[in-house]
Every structure is written in structure tokens, then in C-alpha cells.
């Protein structure tokens, strides 16, 4: 079983990102379980979403405390949340940032993927330039870094799930898939 935790802010679409990944993984034959941190969501407040995938039916029913990988939709969360809490050594940290992996020396136990999902989303006019909707772009970055799911499955899941602009959202995922900077070897 592989466990993924997504950190975002209320309104960024973390829960939908987790669902898109789940739908894509399911289309490739995996069993999936996707759920929000069991809480009350408020716009702008830190939120978490979880994703489990396995070959067989998943029977565990609690929140993810030791994820294999994490996804961060808003880099400022790293100032207020211990995002790597419980993250397994060698796991991926996928960050929405205009920076590059060298900018995160604290994460030397992990693999780092950096993608400017905000710019990609804004280029496709997803949300506004000040508050872009980055959840679809980040799914593309996730596919590239983790190689757990194909980009075509991600794009099909986006077309199924996106309430508006399905093609623009799918293209944002493809762009992020291409643009992500990967540091595949933990520096520690």
C-alpha cells in the first residue's frame, strides 16, 4: 500500500486533487481511498487530504500519519505546518513553487520535485492570477515524479472531474508534467 498526504489551503482544491489522482489510479486497476482530513474547512486555512492506493481492497480507516509521499499546494504552508511529519525517508515532496530543489536544503532525506503550478494554472486562466486553481497542474507533476500513474489517466480523470474548463485543466497537468524540476536523489 502507498500513502500520500496533500497539504493545501481551503479553496485550493486539495480534496479534488486527491480525488483526481484516485480516479486516475482506479482507471489503471488500483484500489483507492481518498478523503479529506476529517475537519471543518475554511477558505485559506491549512487543509490536508489523503490518498491510499493498493492492489487489493484497503481496510485501514484512519488518517495517514506516515506517508510515502507528500504534495504541497502552497509553499507558505511550510512556515506554519510540519509538512514532512512522518514522511518516509526517500519519499517524494512535490512542491508548488517557483524555486528549485536546491532551495530546500532542510529536506535532504527526501526526493524533491518543484513545479510552478501557480504560473501554469494562471497561464491557462484557471482561477485568477492572484488565486490560481493549482490542483489539476499538481496532479500532472505528481504523475511525473512518483511514476505511480500515467499522465493520460490523470488527464482523463481531470476531464471527468473538472466542473469547468476540462481541456485547460488537462493541459495544465501536462505542462506541469513537463516542467517539474526533479531532484531524484536525497542529498543525505
Amino acid at each position, binding site marked *: 500500500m502507498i500513502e500520500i498526504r496533500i497539504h493545501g489551503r481551503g479553496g485550493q482544491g486539495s480534496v479534488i486533487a*486527491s*480525488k483526481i489522482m*484516485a*480516479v486516475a489510479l*482506479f482507471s489503471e486497476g488500483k*484500489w*483507492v*481511498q*481518498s*478523503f*479529506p482530513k*476529517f475537519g*471543518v474547512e475554511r477558505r485559506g486555512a491549512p487543509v490536508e487530504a489523503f490518498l491510499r492506493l493498493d492492489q487489493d481492497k*484497503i*481496510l*485501514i*480507516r*484512519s*488518517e495517514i500519519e506516515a506517508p510515502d509521499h507528500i504534495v504541497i499546494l502552497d509553499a507558505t504552508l511550510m512556515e506554519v505546518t510540519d509538512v514532512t511529519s512522518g514522511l518516509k525517508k526517500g519519499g517524494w515532496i512535490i512542491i508548488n513553487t517557483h524555486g528549485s530543489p536546491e532551495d530546500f536544503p532542510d529536506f535532504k532525506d527526501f526526493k524533491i520535485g518543484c513545479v510552478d503550478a501557480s504560473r501554469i494554472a494562471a497561464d491557462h486562466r484557471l482561477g485568477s492570477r492572484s488565486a490560481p486553481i493549482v490542483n489539476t497542474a499538481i496532479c500532472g507533476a505528481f504523475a511525473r515524479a512518483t511514476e505511480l500513474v500515467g499522465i493520460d489517466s490523470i488527464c482523463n480523470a481531470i476531464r471527468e472531474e473538472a466542473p469547468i474548463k476540462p481541456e485547460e485543466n488537462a493541459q495544465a497537468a501536462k505542462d506541469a508534467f513537463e516542467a517539474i524540476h526533479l531532484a531524484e536523489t536525497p542529498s543525505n
Partner: protein
Amino acid sequence: MKKVLMGNHAASWGARLSKVKMIAAYPITPQTHIVEELSEMCGDGSLDAKFLKVESEHSAMASVISSQSTGVRSFTATSANGLALMHELLHWAAGARLPIVMVNVNRALAPGWNIWVDQGDSLSQRDTGWVQLYVEDNQEVLDSVIQGYRIAEQVNLPVMICYDAFILSHTYEPVDIPDQDLVDKWLPGYQPEHYLNPEKPSAFNGLVMPDNYMEIRYKLHMAHERAKSVTNEVGQSFGETFGRYYGAVEAVECDDAEMVIAISSSATSPARLVIRELRDKGMKIGLLKMRMFRPFPTEEVRAVLKGKSKAVVIDRNCSWGKGGIFADEIKGAISNQEDMPAIYSYITGLGGRSITPDLIHEIVTEVESGEPPAELSVWKGLKQ
């Protein structure tokens, strides 16, 4: 068609496939998605039903009582304080013998305000006369709503399908949505024996004098007795058509077990994991999933527990001043019987706290240690 669905939408699909004709509901977290989705289905024409927005849960139940009385298959959903507000009318629905199906998403009752899982909301409606089923995963949510109508309409009792807040309601997982044609064959349209019909006027629910009242109540009780076997038959028949079998209880690896864990709702799943792990280590342990709570599956529980040395009952609820409710009911079911296990009662997971495999392991280890059961239910996972 297999889809990744949240538990709440599995409930909406269950109602849609059952071709309900009338839905009345009032939103409440964590139930709201159910009726939101149903209102969209009514709006886009994929479900040919009347959707009635009401100003309270009391009115929601009053409305489905009215519509069901006219011979129309009716549905509603609620949670926690919403269910509590329906209380008076829950008695009415059962006393009037109306086969309404309602989903209740188990959530803690305030105060303190808490929107997470606790089974106390529906368990405290125990004596209203509703059949109650507690279900484990999103597939079972969908399947149980459909089965709910078959059970309800055979015994003329309302059925409440209960599942855990957030752990199922807000969690997406694969669900097989059966073909409508297959459901139509398995669950034909509702054919009431008696209903409000201007062509054939009749009166319902009038004054009952002492010389008739007890007989009417006895019939209600006997309908519950019948609902046990009907639930097993319906679960079997559902399996023959759809490939997924259900019953009042499910016993896993119990035949040669010395210890049995009795548990309900979504916490059954991690308990399955624990059973597998302990079996692999050679421990003779089994699992009793308590799907039905009312009527209480006394015979099934006795049959599974007979000859075991210990039974651990894990309750995500508490009857204040008494303890774990399933534990208490199971003790009642095995009293005056020979060769029954000692009952170890544990309360945990209230208000949304996780029930992890580790926690269940800890409980099993404690029970295995040889101590006799504590006098009161043991609260597991309490902070000091």
C-alpha cells in the same frame, strides 16, 4: 459500472436506483451531500422524484410519513441533532407501519459541538421501532439502501441505514453501481396493501382504546421478529443477483475461534486486518460483524458465540451510566444460555477519534492477558 464514489453519493445512488418517488430533507453536516446529489438528480431528470425542501428535520420526517402514506416510495437522510429532532415522528413512522428508508450518518450529538463519528445518535433511537443496519463501506451503503426497501416493504417497518461520519460519508472509494434494469427486476415498484386513496377512502392511525392497543403493539413487535429472517433472506437474494451477500451479522473465521471480536460499522474493516494478522501468527480469533441492531439478531449472536471463551465488544458509543451499547445488548442475548464467553466491553473512537489496527491489537492483548472482564466498559485511548 464501477466508479470512485464518496459514501454520501453511494447513498444517493442507492435511493436513485430504488426509484424513490419522494425525497424530503433538510441539510446537516456530514449528510448534506446525499440530498444535494439527489436534488441534482431530480433537477436533471435522471431521477423521476419530487424533491421537497423543508425547514427542519421534523418536517422532513413528517413529509415522508405523509408521502409514504399515499403509497409512494419515500426517502430522507439526516444525522445527529437532525435525527434527534425527528424523534417524535420516528415513533409515528414505525407505529403507522410505513416502509420509509432513511440514511443516518452517525455523528456526535452536541454539546460539545463535534461533527465526527459517534453512533449515539441512532442508537439512542433504539426503541422507536425502526429497523437499524450499521454498514461497513461505501459499497455496502449503496447496496443496503436498495435492500432497505425490500426489507421495509416486506415487513411494513421503516429502515434506517447508518454509517460513520467522514470515515465513509466523505471518503471516496470504488463502488459498483448496479444496472438499473437489474435493480428494477430485484426491487419492483412499491405495491402498498393499504394507502390513502380517494377511490377507496379509509382512515388511519385514529384513537385506539385499551382493548385493541396491546394487540397493535404486539404486531409491531412481531414484525420486528420477522424482520430478522427477512433481512437474511433479502441479503442472500441480493447476493444471488448482484454477487455481494449480506446478513444480519457476518462471522469471519469464527468456527474454531477461542476469542471473537464483535464490532460494527467502518471499524469492522481494521478489525478484519487484525484478525488476518493474528491468524497468521496462529491465534484462534474470529470476527463478528454486527450489521443489524434492531431487531437484535439474538439467535445469530448466540450461534456464533457459543463455545467461545472470550468475546471482545468494541463500541463507538456509550449509554451514559451503563456503557457500550452493543456490549450490553450482546450480554442480554447470551444471558440464560450455557457455554457462552466472558464479555469484555471496550469504548473507543468517540467523536471521530481513529480506530486503528494498533488500537485493536492493544485491546486483544489486554483481553488475552487472563484478567477477568472489568465490571464497567473500559474506555480505550483516553488521554491522561
